[in-house]
Structure formats: structure tokens, C-alpha cells
């Protein structure tokens, strides 16, 4: 590919629009010069021969990048239509569940894999492709731009000057003196000034031009964080139910941590009725323990680490582990108490209290009176063979079979107790009966357990992107060229944006140095609607 030789003698690479040394435009036109990327030859715009170049150019294209971002956006929205698989019951077949809950559309949703969208191979591929696109597009633009700005000369070609949007020239009597004044004034206006045989270049806030690339670096860090996050074992999210007073291992920590609930509590808005109450605040008094036992599978040795009230949005934090208040069940049965009564005399032999989670089997009432719990069904039902069974391990509908043994009935007699009804063992006339004397309730707190190790990476990425955005929007890269052309002094100015501010600075410069009358300034008005 041949080089472009400028009249100043500089060899420019093929594709260059403005000489990188003297600033002479190569297009022989008279209109306002396009200053994008300083007229530098961008590789992706010039070479398109080898496969490597083609791949490079594909990813360097902003259009391709925007298309991928758009697809990502649409896909991410689709993923929120129905709940993701992790939020549906774990024991059901996803295809059936989505069809049952959401009909044909739901079936299609699960069939296409949208129920696992954010960890699907194509979603991850898309994320990576966007990362590639951002990286390549940045390299493709940043390197030539950086070089171009670093190498820029001070004296510019006359046609470069006259084709700037702000341009003016005037005849002065003592050009050297004026140039000296102008230099001092530029410095006063906080420009960095370079001087080269009768030419001045004042430059300000060049770092503004690096803003977009800083944003990109931030986004790439963010993307890397997101990709690490979906790798197995990096992020943990578990759910646990904990009853008042219980101490249980925190799931996902391999019994490293245990948590105890010292009670769940709930406040309800006063205005709401008993039927349609709305919780105002709910909280768990929690204690976090670390299991310091050498053998995590053996008997735990618990050391208290932290004691805290967990509220919604106020999780208990320990290093990367977080426990969030998430849900609750109020008034689960926890204990039933029964009076054992001699039917004929009405004498009460004693009371039996059954823990519904860990029931004992033997209860000694003294005086040779014994009660044995021989069967316990926490969630009673009759199975397909009409046999007593339990639907779950939660005491929603407890049923009991007791055997009462006393000196009067040494062979024992059986009583069936369901919530609300008693049935005696068929064929026998019982002498004793058991009746419910007390019921204790428990609250159950639902905690979300999360372990986030990647969050610092994600916040770093966001922070860098934010700094980049500030570099983009709060500063402007401004340049003013002033040079002697014979006994004239020429002035041209360029800014990356905010032309109005640039104009004011130029006017201030020429007025305070009496360089020229502001009316000599040629200002192309089209910049007002043509901001870069």
C-alpha cells in the first residue's frame, strides 16, 4: 500500500486524511475540515485483505457493536417475562411447570431455554462478543488518535488553518511583540503552550479525548466480572428456612457457618384489616456462628461471630457471606399438649407435650402411667391404599397414635388424634382419652444466603466507567493555533465540543491582546447543530 507524501516531506500512511506533520488536508476542498480522529488513518478503514484484518474490521465496527448490544438488551428483557428456573420449585420438570403456569407461551419459553437465559451458552457468547467488540474498537481508534495527538506539529498548513470552524487573520505592525503577548495571555487562560518558529499551539484538557476509552476499560472490567460470576463455585445463592430458636448450618458453606434464630418478628401497618394485613417490617434476631471444629462433618464447635437483627435490605454480613431477610411463615404448629383423662372419673392423669419437629416417643406420667407416641404424621393424609401417611414433613395437619398404659390397662390402649377430632382404635372401648390442652406456634423465617466474591470487580468496573464519563462530559479538548504568515497573524481554534465556550475564550484572547478585531473572526455557524 503506497504512502501519501505531503508537500512538507512527511510520509503518511495510506488512508490519512490530514497530514500528520503539518496538518495539510489531502482532499483539496474548501469546506470545514472533518477533524474526527485528527484525520488519521484508522486501520479498520483501510486494510481489508487478510482474514485477520476481516475479523478485526468486523469487531471494530460500531454498527456491529450496537447491533450486539441491542440483541443483548432484547434478550435480557425476554429473560424477565417469566421467572428464571432458579425461582421455580426445584423438584418439578421445568417444561411441564412453565406450560402449567403460563400456557403454550410458557412451554415455548422453556423449550427455547429462556428459563435459564443468563447462563445459557449463547447469552455468554454474546457478552464475550460485546467485550471483544469494545476492546477491538477501542484499540482501533485509541492507538492512532493517541499517536496523532502526541506527534502533532505546531505550525499548521495554511489550508488546515483556514478550514477550521473558528478562523481569523489580521495584519499587525510588530508580529513578534504580538505573538509574545498572545503567548502570555494563552498561559494566563491556562493553556499549555508550545512554540515553534513563529507559531503557537495552545492546548487544554487533552485527557478529555481519552474519556471514551476509559469508559470502555471500565465496561470490559465489568464484563469480565460478570463472566467470572457465572463460573461454577464463584457465586453462591441458597435459601434456608429457620424456625424460632433453631440453630442450623448455613447452606453452601459446608458447615463452616451456623446461624441461630432467636425469634422472628413482624410489624403490620395499623390501617390494614385482619384479613388483608400488610407487613410493615419483618426481622429475624440472628446469631452467626463459625464452626471451629477441625472435622466439619463431626460435632460442630460453634463460636459466636456476630449478633444482628436481619431486616429487609439490612443483611447480616460477614466477609463475602450475606444473609438476607426474604420470607416468613407465621404460626406454624410447634408443640401440642394433651391431657390424659380417665373418662369415667374425669381425673386427669397428666399432660403430654409433643414437639412436632422432633417428637419423643415415651412420656412417663408417674404412678405407672405411661404414654407412648407410636405413630406421628405431621401432614396427615390417606394414601392411595387408604393407609395413613404424611404429605410432607411440615406439621400442617398433625395426626398422632398414642398408646396409654396404666396399672388398670397394662396391655395398653390406642387413641388416634387428628387436629379437631379423636378416633378410638376400632373395636375397643377406651377407658382413657387424650384431648388437646394447648397448642404452641412458631414463626419460620426465610433467609437468602449469598456469597459474592466478584462484587468488588464489578464496582471497580463501574467506578472506572464513571470516571471515564466524567472525563467525557465535564472537560473539552480545546486547541488554538496562532501563527505568523508573512506580516499577518492567523488564528484558528478547534474544540471537541462546546463551541460556544471556545468562541468566548478566543474572543477574550484577541480582545485582551489586541490581536484583531473580533469582527475579523470567521466563525462557521454550522457548528451549532453539528457538534461532534
Amino acid at each position, binding site marked *: 500500500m503506497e504512502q501519501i507524501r505531503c508537500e512538507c516531506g512527511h510520509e503518511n500512511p495510506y488512508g490519512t486524511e490530514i497530514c500528520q506533520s503539518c496538518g495539510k488536508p489531502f482532499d483539496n476542498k474548501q469546506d470545514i475540515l472533518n477533524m474526527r480522529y485528527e484525520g488519521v488513518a484508522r486501520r479498520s478503514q483501510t486494510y481489508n485483505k487478510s482474514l485477520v484484518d476481516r475479523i478485526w474490521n468486523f469487531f471494530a465496527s460500531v454498527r456491529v457493536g450496537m447491533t450486539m448490544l441491542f440483541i443483548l438488551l432484547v434478550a435480557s428483557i425476554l429473560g424477565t417475562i417469566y421467572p428464571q428456573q432458579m425461582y421455580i420449585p426445584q423438584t418439578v420438570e421445568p417444561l411441564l411447570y412453565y406450560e402449567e403456569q403460563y400456557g403454550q407461551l410458557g412451554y415455548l419459553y422453556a423449550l427455547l431455554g429462556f428459563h435459564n437465559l443468563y447462563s445459557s451458552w449463547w447469552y455468554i457468547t454474546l457478552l464475550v462478543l460485546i467485550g471483544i467488540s469494545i476492546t477491538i474498537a477501542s484499540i482501533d481508534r485509541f492507538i492512532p488518535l493517541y499517536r496523532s495527538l502526541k506527534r502533532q506539529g505546531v505550525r499548521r498548513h495554511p489550508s488546515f488553518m483556514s478550514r477550521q470552524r473558528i478562523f481569523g487573520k489580521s495584519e499587525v505592525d510588530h508580529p513578534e511583540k504580538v505573538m509574545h503577548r498572545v503567548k502570555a495571555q494563552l498561559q494566563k487562560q491556562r493553556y499549555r503552550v508550545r512554540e515553534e518558529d513563529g507559531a503557537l499551539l495552545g492546548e487544554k484538557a487533552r485527557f478529555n479525548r481519552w474519556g471514551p476509552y476509559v469508559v470502555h476499560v471500565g465496561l470490559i472490567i465489568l464484563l469480565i466480572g460478570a463472566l467470572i460470576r457465572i*463460573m461454577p463455585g464463584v457465586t453462591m445463592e441458597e435459601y434456608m428456612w429457620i424456625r424460632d430458636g433453631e440453630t442450623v448450618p448455613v447452606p453452601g458453606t459446608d458447615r463452616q457457618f451456623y446461624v441461630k434464630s432467636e425469634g422472628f418478628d413482624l410489624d403490620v401497618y395499623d390501617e390494614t384489616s385482619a384479613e388483608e394485613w400488610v407487613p410493615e417490617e419483618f426481622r429475624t434476631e440472628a446469631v452467626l456462628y463459625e464452626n471451629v471444629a477441625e472435622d466439619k462433618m463431626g460435632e460442630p464447635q460453634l463460636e459466636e461471630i456476630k449478633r444482628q437483627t436481619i431486616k429487609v435490605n439490612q443483611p447480616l454480613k460477614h466477609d463475602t457471606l450475606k444473609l438476607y431477610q426474604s420470607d416468613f411463615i407465621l404460626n406454624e404448629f410447634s408443640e401440642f399438649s394433651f391431657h390424659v383423662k380417665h373418662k369415667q372419673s374425669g381425673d386427669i392423669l397428666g399432660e403430654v407435650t409433643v414437639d412436632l419437629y422432633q417428637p419423643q416417643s415415651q412420656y412417663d406420667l408417674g404412678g405407672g402411667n405411661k404414654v407412648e407416641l407410636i405413630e406421628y404424621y405431621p401432614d396427615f393424609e390417606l394414601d392411595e391404599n387408604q393407609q395413613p401417611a*404424611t404429605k*410432607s414433613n411440615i406439621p400442617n395437619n398433625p395426626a398422632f397414635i398414642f398408646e396409654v398404659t396404666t396399672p388398670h390397662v397394662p396391655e395398653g390402649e390406642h387413641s388416634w388424634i387428628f387436629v379437631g377430632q379423636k378416633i378410638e382404635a376400632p373395636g375397643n372401648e377406651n377407658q382413657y382419652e387424650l384431648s388437646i390442652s394447648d397448642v404452641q406456634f412458631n414463626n419460620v423465617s426465610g433467609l437468602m444466603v449469598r456469597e459474592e466474591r466478584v462484587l468488588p470487580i464489578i464496582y471497580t468496573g463501574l467506578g472506572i466507567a464513571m470516571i471515564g464519563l466524567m472525563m467525557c462530559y465535564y472537560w473539552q479538548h480545546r486547541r488554538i493555533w496562532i501563527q505568523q504568515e508573512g506580516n499577518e497573524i492567523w488564528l484558528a481554534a478547534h474544540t471537541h465540543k462546546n463551541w460556544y465556550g471556545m468562541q468566548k475564550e478566543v474572543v477574550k484572547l484577541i480582545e485582551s491582546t489586541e490581536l484583531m478585531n473580533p469582527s475579523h473572526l470567521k466563525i462557521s455557524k454550522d457548528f451549532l447543530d453539528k457538534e461532534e
Partner: protein
Amino acid sequence: MADKVKNKRFVLRVTVLVIIALALGGALISAFMNDDTPVRVGEPAPDFRLDNVEGDSVRLSDFEGQGVFINFWATWCGPCREEMPDIQAQYEVFKDQGVEVLAVNIAESELAASRFAERLNLTFPILLDHDRTVTKQFEVGDIPSSFFIGPEGNVVDKHTGILTEDQIKAYMEKIRP
């Protein structure tokens, strides 16, 4: 000089593209690994310790050198109730040949589990997984769920759902030392 620049550019581009290809490959591999459960056939089974209904501590590693049939069950699970007698029948055949059955009850009371075992005359150890740690460790979703551990401690096979007596027999033959 121009050739040198071109060469440098080519090297840069190839390097960037190779790094990217590696990143993409890594991301995809990790995405696929996500679908895998930690208890994989052919790999060592995770060790665990639970109490049995008698209150004794039982470890999976205690049974090294024997075949172990781990069955996750609950009294509220109909198919579990159904397959238990078949497991018991085959246990009686295979226990003298070095095959042990560990029936892990999921989060029920000791009373419920032991009464159930008594009713069905189960003679193998009934383990209590009160806090579902082992159930989670083995990523058990649907029950009954069965894992077959060979004498050297590797997962030989796994099965979700009810087993027929013939299947139980075939699996036990597979893990017999």
C-alpha cells in the same frame, strides 16, 4: 520501515484475537460445566457423616472396600415407600457379599423415620439428614434418588425415581466388591 510497522500490527492483531478466542473458550466451557452436578459418575463420592436413628455416627468412608447403595427417601414420598421392601429383600441377599445400604431420610423426625423402618422391618442403617446438608451435597431434587458407590469410593451409577427389584439387583451386582 513500513513493513516493520505492518508486521508489528499483524502480531498485535493476532495476539489480541488469540487472547479473545481463549476468553471465549473459557467462558463457554465454564457455562457448560455449570450444567454438571458435583456428584459425577466415575468420580469419588463426597464423604459425609450423619447420625442413624439409634444415635450412632455413620460416615460414608467407614464403608471403604464395600459397595454402598445410598438411597434418599422420606416417609411422605409414595414411591419411596413402595421401593423400600424391594431394597430390603435385595439387601438380605447382598449384605453378606459386601454391599451396604444407607437410607438417608430427608429432614424428618427421628420418630417418623424409625417407626417407618420398624413397620417395614428394614434392617439397614437409617440415617437422618435433619438440615438437608447431605441432600444438598448430592444435589438431590426428586426422590427417591439412589447413588451406587463402588468399593473404591467412586460413584458407579445414579438413579432418580423408583427402582424395580430387578434394577436393584443389577445395581448391587455392579457395586459388589
